[in-house]
């Protein structure tokens, strides 16, 4: 661990760095198998991805799952609300790094930066209006162990105007961050 790590102590929309606690692969040792795992060659510059690329096949599948859940905006939930599900899950699980990235995306796509900041500052019980409250509540129920997601969450999402395809996007987006949060939180730490 580098001596220059300066961990954030609050949730923020600022850009943060991330420092690995174990050894990423050196860039010079990456082979074609690794570059396939990285999906985007530029990710070779990232310590996080050079760590995960130790298991290239899993990283490749994880990355493609992630990209489709969040970036495939054909039909379904608007990108802003997928990012809200990611940010709410990260807030609830306690991943300051993941929350910072996806809170920024939620702000960018929704133009509701103050509401996103309210989620970070006040936590998952912040009042963000019916539709966002339903998305946050569903994300929190899914992130709980044992899983607390139930018919009431579906009912609330429907009352807020979501159809089944959009509800599946909430389920996918929130569930995916239970994957991402655990990697980011346990393999290294954020730094300002």
């Amino acid at each position, binding site marked *: 661990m580098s001596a220059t790590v300066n*961990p954030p*102590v*609050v*949730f923020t929309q600022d850009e943060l760095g991330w420092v690995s*606690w*174990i*050894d990423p692969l050196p860039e010079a040792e990456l082979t074609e198998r690794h570059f396939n795992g990285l999906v985007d060659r530029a990710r070779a510059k990232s310590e996080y991805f050079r760590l*995960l690329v*130790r*298991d290239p*096949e*899993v*990283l*490749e*599948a*994880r990355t*493609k*799952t992630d*990209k*489709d*859940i969040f970036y*495939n905006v054909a*039909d*379904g939930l608007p990108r802003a609300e997928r990012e809200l599900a990611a940010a709410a899950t990260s807030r609830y*699980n*306690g*991943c*300051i790094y993941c929350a910072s990235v996806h809170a920024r995306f939620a702000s960018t796509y929704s133009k509701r930066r103050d509401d996103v900041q309210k989620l970070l500052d006040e*936590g998952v019980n912040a009042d963000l209006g019916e539709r966002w409250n339903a998305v946050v509540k569903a994300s929190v129920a*899914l*992130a*709980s*162990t*044992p*899983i607390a*997601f*139930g*018919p009431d*969450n*579906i*009912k609330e999402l429907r009352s807020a105007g979501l159809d*089944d*395809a959009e*509800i*599946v996007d909430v*389920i*996918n987006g*929130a*569930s*995916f961050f*239970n*994957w*991402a*949060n*655990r*990697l980011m*939180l*346990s*393999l290294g*730490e954020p730094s300002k």
Partner: protein
Amino acid sequence: MAPTDLIDKLAGIEPGSALDAIRAKRLQARENAQKSYLSLFEPIDAGDVSLLERAAVAAFVTGLHGESPVATFYRDKLAATTGGAALLEAIDAEIARGQTSGPYGSFPPGPLSVENTAGLIYRVGAASKSALGPRLVAALEHAHLLVFRPRDAASDDMKALLAAGWSNTGIVTVSQLVAFLSFQVRVVSGLRTLAAVNA
């Protein structure tokens, strides 16, 4: 015919159903969730984490989430893995010992400390240690941390895994395994709930 998609199978999604059509709109995600499963449980290289270790951690992690088709699937998988039958008793006992509710844990000292929530710091029971061996003991303790209190994770937890004989690559794979299962069990639960509401 294409091989069965595991999430569809565990969620009870039938070909041609409404949820099948919705999942087809996120085809890359559906196919790569399946590839993630295959890369973890039928890896091209199991040198850093054995198939038995993968199955044991999976049965433990999904069991910690409570009874479900997912937990049953991975318990059966452990039973069917070479050497797995001998671990079932210990894994069942450790699931029972590890049951709690999450997420809990501590934030970095500062304004968020008011949100710190205490909870079980799980350690493998003495009676299970000889059956599991030191590598799996360390892996289960780490898996419990990831499932219930991921925000407590610290660099010392990496040192504990390294000291128990896990390589850097093995730690990445075990972490992906626990994190992927945390995703899979939730997607299945969410889809099952939606299907039940519509039934």
